[in-house]
């Protein structure tokens, strides 16, 4: 057991810090710090900078152009990037689709799509959820019927994050209606420019529109866009959901969030003293900080086990549940800390500056973020689904 960084690890951290210091554009980190949307251009600019450094794909093997970092390196990068308010890396192509292609895709698919992900030529979004499916993902209804050298796709996907920026979508579709639920599902890559696709934004409760509905009406998809075998898509989907999900615990985001809470609580006054000195608020901060200190070690323990060839298994569900609880608690603290200045509707701040919006605390749209991040425990397999996975695994299917 050794909790301190080795010399190599310290050197890597210094390298990351120097890179962030030099290359992270100030306008982007400002937006991240203030909780504002980056817009498509902002994301693309940061991706290009990371790609130039060779750091855009930390998890990919070297042969595909990845950084092939180990668990500790990834942890260090995530921690430092969050502390510097670097934008998050849009994960759909890089850490969701790519591992599936690398594991199950053809050589041609890998040769064609992977470089385009790195270069930013393609912006991918995810076509998993459907209106009627929710947590019961396998009950999806979107169909793909093979006709000659094309599939004809009909149906609807929803909760498609940043779909408005995407030119490509990977989808789970039903290719065999008669098969049992999980069988008969295939994994398709679809060009968003194909006729018959319509994207409609969903306005969320915080006023933002980062998610979309995507409608498919007789959309023609070339058969070579099938990944792996027909009707085996559920296997690939599960691989995607349980494997190689980087940063599932969101420790870096939580650390940056907690720093922001402390900053707000230092400038906000309560009873004539800074709020951070109020014992009740200090106790709230301390409890979540203690949880986060433990979480950071839990995360490292689990990912280094996984890196050593041991399957992460049920532990990634644990990271998801506790990680989101902590992030949401920090969002709650930020909202509380801001007091009456959490009340203004800061949606305009999302798209840029809003001179009329009062923000003497420089807190940012803390209440909108609080509401928006309720999604963390719903999307990507709700926390109830994760608890069910943990229980099923550890109780061995008690009946």
């Amino acid at each position: 057991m050794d909790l301190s960084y080795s010399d190599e690890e310290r050197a890597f951290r210094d390298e990351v810090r120097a890179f962030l210091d030099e290359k992270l554009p100030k306008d982007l980190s400002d937006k991240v710090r203030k909780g504002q949307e980056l817009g498509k251009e902002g994301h693309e600019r940061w991706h290009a900078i990371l790609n130039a450094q060779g750091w855009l794909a930390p998890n990919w093997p070297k042969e595909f152009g990845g950084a092939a970092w180990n668990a500790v390196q990834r942890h260090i990068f995530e921690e430092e990037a969050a502390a510097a308010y670097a934008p998050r890396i849009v994960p759909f192509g890089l850490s969701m689709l790519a591992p599936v292609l690398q594991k199950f895709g053809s050589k041609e698919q890998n040769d064609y799509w992977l470089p385009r992900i790195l270069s930013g030529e393609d912006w991918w979004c995810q076509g998993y959820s459907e209106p009627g499916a929710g947590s019961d993902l396998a009950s999806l209804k979107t169909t793909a019927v093979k006709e000659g050298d094309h599939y004809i796709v009909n149906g609807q996907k929803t909760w498609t994050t940043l779909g408005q920026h995407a030119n490509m979508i990977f989808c789970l579709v039903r290719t065999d209606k008669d098969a049992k639920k999980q069988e008969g599902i295939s994994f398709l890559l679809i060009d968003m420019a194909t006729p018959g696709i319509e994207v409609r934004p969903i306005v969320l409760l915080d006023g933002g529109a980062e998610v979309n509905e995507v409608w498919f009406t007789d959309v023609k998809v070339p058969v070579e866009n099938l990944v792996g075998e027909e009707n085996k898509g559920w296997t690939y989907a599960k691989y995607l959901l349980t494997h190689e999900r980087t940063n599932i615990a969101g420790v870096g985001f939580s650390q940056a969030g907690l720093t922001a809470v402390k900053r707000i609580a230092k400038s906000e006054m309560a009873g004539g003293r800074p709020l951070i000195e109020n014992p009740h608020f200090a106790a709230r901060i301390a409890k979540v900080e203690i949880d986060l200190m433990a979480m950071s070690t839990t995360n490292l323990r689990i990912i280094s086990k996984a890196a050593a060839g041991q399957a992460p298994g049920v532990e990634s569900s644990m990271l998801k549940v506790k990680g989101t609880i902590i992030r949401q608690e920090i969002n709650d603290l930020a909202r509380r800390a801001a007091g009456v200045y959490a009340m203004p509707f800061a949606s305009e701040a999302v798209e840029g500056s809003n001179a009329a919006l009062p923000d003497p605390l420089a807190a940012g749209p803390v209440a909108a973020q609080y509401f928006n991040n309720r999604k963390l425990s719903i999307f990507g397999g709700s926390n109830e689904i994760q608890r069910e996975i943990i229980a099923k695994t550890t109780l061995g299917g008690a009946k």
Partner: protein
Amino acid sequence: MNFDLTEERQMLQDSLRRFLRDKYDTATRNRILESETGFSADIWSALAELGVIGALFTEEQGGFGGKGFDLAVVFEELGRAGVVEPFMDTAVLAGGLIADLGDGAQQEHVEAVIGGALQLAFAHGEPSSRYDLNRVQTTAKAEGDRIVLNGRKAVVVNAEAADMLVVSARESGDVGDEDGISLFLVPADAKGLSIEGYALLAGGRAGEVTLDEVSLPASARLGAAGKAYPVIEARMAAANVALCAETLGAMHTACELTREYLGTRKQFGRAIGSFQALAHRMSDLLIEMEQARSAVINAAGHLEGDRVGRERHVSAAKNLIGRVGRLVAEDSIQMHGGIAMTQEYELAHIAKRIVMADHRFGDTDHHLERFIALASA
């Protein structure tokens, strides 16, 4: 001891509930939310006509209610329907303060409020006062027979729509003193008064109010100079009873929506309410709802009592509602899943009303501290 509503209150509750059910659905409210003023003048007039505002004032003040249980009945219904119109600000706060303190001429404004013809706002909190009622830095200085106000007021709800503002300012003492605070009636068009307005996350609008050498006649003062604090505290107690009742109503709606959703939404071939993981959480919400209702009853029932009893029960209610409110809002969203995150679904607005209520008139922690202080006092 008796837990039944009087016949009058029961009738008011019934008619208000019926009106709002018919006239105030999600689509209507979303249009109001997106409007420039942030509220509907038609709804305002109709509700005034229904007696909603009159119920918030006593008979001596020209109304027909004004007790804790009157506020509770009205605001629970407003909360159930997620009403964003500024009854709190015009009637309970500013209107109530005029009724509490105003002289003969000033009292005429109360009549206008009850009739639905006057909009008001209460400009009290300041950028560094957070939830403390005594931290007033805005100054009121006598200059000849005029009084001149200078300062800034934070997040003044309904400031833009208000015809007049009730503004607190310090005539003497230090920033944290209870003594020395006065209230003034300031016309919206007073020279030196400016408002930067903005929408609020949970509906309605507010503004940052700047008072730059605002000169008023002495007749603008409400009540005696420097003696407004106890009246503000008592008024805030009434406002908190109203806000707790409103939040109780909103929580009721959240629970009802969730209950219905659990019974109808199917996943894995079953109604999701048949899964214990959700069903037992729903049970806990319903238990806490009973507790929340009791807390509101306790606070409303002590509103006309002695100060310590009143403040203790008000702080207890605000603390309990703050805790239960967070639970209800978060669990309702969680049990719904993604649908609850969308603007067009009723719960989205209701959840925002519930959570953001914790940011007015003192939050969960503020009232816990107050409760402790009152116990050891």
